[in-house]
């Protein structure tokens, strides 16, 4: 059976797995932003935390996913088997580009602009929201873009812990020694990654233009 034949014969499942995959990526990227951006901001306010937090995010990147799952299985609340554990792993893998770009983006804001904002009587919170985050937005978004594309790719490992997604086809295909089955997972995943990258690139341009 060729790849296309397999794809057509199994279009319902391919679609369902793609939706599952999108969901995994969306939830984990959303959480990574919710954790990563504040963490990045924190680093600009407390430079002493820079080494431990970026160090942690760096080390996480080097842990192979199967080993990470092995660590996560026994943990209460965030561990176990299924989509939840996969999402925890994907959030951890997504943190580094988001934290780093948030930090870099804010630090790169021209000190004169910051001074001017203070001179106008803005509070710290106002400086952060109105000046720093707005000016750093393109850089932060570039980090998010990297994290999302990574999540689409790494998301296939969710299937190693019962989390579903397009990785199901890849693992199944490897077990059955069947290339069409592997491609039924790999090709949609690649298309998803390209689409996500293109979409976020567009958003970056729009934000740039609004500035």
């Amino acid at each position, binding site marked *: 059976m060729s790849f296309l034949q397999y794809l057509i014969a199994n279009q319902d499942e391919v679609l369902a797995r793609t939706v599952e995959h999108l969901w995994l990526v969306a939830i984990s990227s959303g959480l990574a932003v919710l954790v990563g951006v504040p963490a990045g901001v924190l680093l600009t306010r407390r430079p002493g935390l820079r080494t431990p937090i970026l160090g942690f995010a760096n080390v996480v990147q080097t842990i192979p996913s199967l080993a990470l799952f092995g660590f996560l*299985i026994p943990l209460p609340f965030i561990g*176990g*088997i299924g989509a939840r554990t996969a999402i925890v792993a994907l959030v951890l893998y997504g943190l580094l580009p988001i934290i780093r770009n948030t930090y870099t983006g804010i630090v790169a804001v021209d000190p004169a602009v910051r001074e001017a904002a203070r001179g106008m009587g803005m509070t710290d919170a106002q400086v952060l929201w109105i000046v720093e985050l707005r000016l750093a937005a393109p850089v932060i978004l570039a980090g998010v873009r990297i994290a999302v594309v990574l999540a689409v790719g790494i998301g296939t490992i969710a*299937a*190693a*812990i019962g989390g579903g997604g397009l990785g199901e086809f890849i693992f*199944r295909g490897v*077990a059955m*020694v069947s290339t069409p089955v592997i491609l039924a997972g790999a090709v949609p995943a690649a298309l998803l990654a390209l689409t996500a990258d293109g979409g976020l690139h567009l958003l970056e341009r729009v934000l740039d233009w609004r500035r």
Partner: protein
Amino acid sequence: MNKRLLPFLPLIPLIAGCVGRDAVIVGSKNFTESLLLGEIVAQQLERYQVPVERKLYLGGTFVCHQAIVAGQIDLYVEYTGTASSAVLKLPAAHDAARVRQSVDSAYRANWGIEWTAPFGFNNTFAMLVRRQDAARLGIRTLSQAARYAPGWKPAFGYEFVEREDGYRGLLQAYGLRFGTRPATMDLALTYRALAEGRADFIAGNSTDGLIKALDLFPLEDDRHYFPPYQAAPVVRSQVFSRFPAARAALAKLANTLTDERMRELNYQVDVGHQRPADVAAGFLAGVAK
């Protein structure tokens, strides 16, 4: 059981390069259990003053089979089920003695190769639960376990779910019904998930050292659903005319290994990091000469 054969094709000329006829050439496949059994057979022959040359860790079923047919090795340990399905392409059968009989006569007729007596253990899929659960519920077999399955969360590797002799057939054979759909995941992680209480029922390999390491309990396949994978030496018949002592040596290995004993030996190598040759010697010390 082994389909990963093609990548090893280029190895054949390598194996073919070495021809020596003054010793029995013992081969093995490229995983712990096969290596251990190859070492056990080699040392047993040496105990009977049969000269041995080792060509262990050759590759998968395909490489070993081609090598023995071509006469580049004289002997290796094969599994009856693997020979039946992967080498001879026979339909799956469930009677251990009949499978052994059919592979033996086919090997003799086709290639002048004999199957000597099996070691006694069966390396097949093992349905595992936690030992404490098995003890608490007082269950030993899959038929008994079927009563409790609706309350269990199963987790399986992809191969077990996809294989014809895997999950679907198992449900039918025992009328099993689980409470949740099985989680499909990485095989090694299913062991971990079971041990940590995140899954209640998994499919492992019956002689895997992890079963012992994690205190798991293999449920008996009392309806003989899984095809038998008995391990036994396959030997070129002319070995016995060249070295008559070899027959007695191999006969002594019959039924010396239970599933549990084989698990223990694998455990010593995989988890205890002992050398296969030492583990084999330790085992043979307990086998009457």
